[in-house]
């Protein structure tokens, strides 16, 4: 028996019956790790990232009829995830500002130096310190390999803003990651 393609699963899922739900479950199994990683890079909090990744799939299932079957499901669901995380972060703006203040004072940070010794965790922490709009641009450019124009279209900001957000974000990241200890 051949493995069904994403397209087959989407067509079955669109029927909305029990078998359709199961077909969508198969799609979730295929893409849950990459969607979770989008959320985790954006939010830097595992529980929150898992909850939001679940929300991404629930929303995608409800709006599956709007998905263009000719497009690839993976990139689409990851873009949905990035957008949902951006909305989530913007909704938490006050908290983020508090986090930024907290980041400014290393003695107030809950993560110990030991926890951050891994380079991957340092990169994640640096990403998490960026403002939400910078974070999403880095996510879409570096991890979803979208062009400047695609990013501008996706998050509905001018092309010039995409560039300025991305370049400033990289500057901040370089300062945080390449700063002498």
């Amino acid at each position, binding site marked *: 028996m051949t493995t069904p393609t994403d397209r087959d699963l989407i067509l079955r899922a669109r029927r909305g019956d029990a078998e359709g739900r*199961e077909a969508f479950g198969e799609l979730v*199994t295929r893409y*849950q*790790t990459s969607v979770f990683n989008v959320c985790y890079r954006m939010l830097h909090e595992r529980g929150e990232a898992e909850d939001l990744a679940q929300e991404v799939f629930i929303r995608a299932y409800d709006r599956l009829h709007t998905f263009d079957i000719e497009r690839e499901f993976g990139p689409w669901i990851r873009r949905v995830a990035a957008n949902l995380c951006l909305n989530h972060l913007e909704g938490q703006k006050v908290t983020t500002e508090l986090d930024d203040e907290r980041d400014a004072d290393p003695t107030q940070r809950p993560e110990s130096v030991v926890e951050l010794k891994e380079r991957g965790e340092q990169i994640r922490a640096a990403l998490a310190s960026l403002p939400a709009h910078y974070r999403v641009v880095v996510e879409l450019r570096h991890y979803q390999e979208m062009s*400047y124009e695609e990013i501008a279209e996706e998050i509905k900001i001018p092309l010039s803003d995409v560039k300025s957000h*991305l370049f400033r974000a990289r500057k901040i990241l370089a300062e945080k*990651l*390449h700063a002498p200890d």
Partner: protein
Amino acid sequence: MHLTEEQLNEYLDNETAERAQIELHLSSCDKCAARLSTLQNLFTELDSLPELELTKSLAAPFTLRPSLPAQLPKFLTLTASLQAAVALAAIIIAAPFVIPLIPAIETSSLTTLLFEAQSQWTAWLDMLSQFQMPAMPEIPILEMSSLLMALAGVSVLWVLGNGLLLRNQMK
């Protein structure tokens, strides 16, 4: 004149139309080449970020089917039949050994218990026979016969009504 940050970023993102000029400048400017190298390192670090695994499956809400009537697997049904047959055989084999022991069981206590229970039951029936309903106030307008007639009429109507309602389902 050095390259701008924008030029370096666009060069690494493959989003510039000035690649040839930028490369020409980089070949002759160590400072800009070093800046590009630093930026390239950042790209490499970002790209090297490992993917993490989930601690739970997100597919569960979509794979849970509505509960169906539980059906035992075939092998379990066969096992159950086999167990029943073995139990029956065990009873048949054990019967000749157990039956001679039955008269030896002390039954007097059981008889006493049954007798006591019967006495209590009789006493309770006696008490019940002496019970008298409190006198009901008489309703001058309604007599018992007219009440019974009304009750019978309502019952007939109820049966007819239900019959009409269920007529289609009976077909």
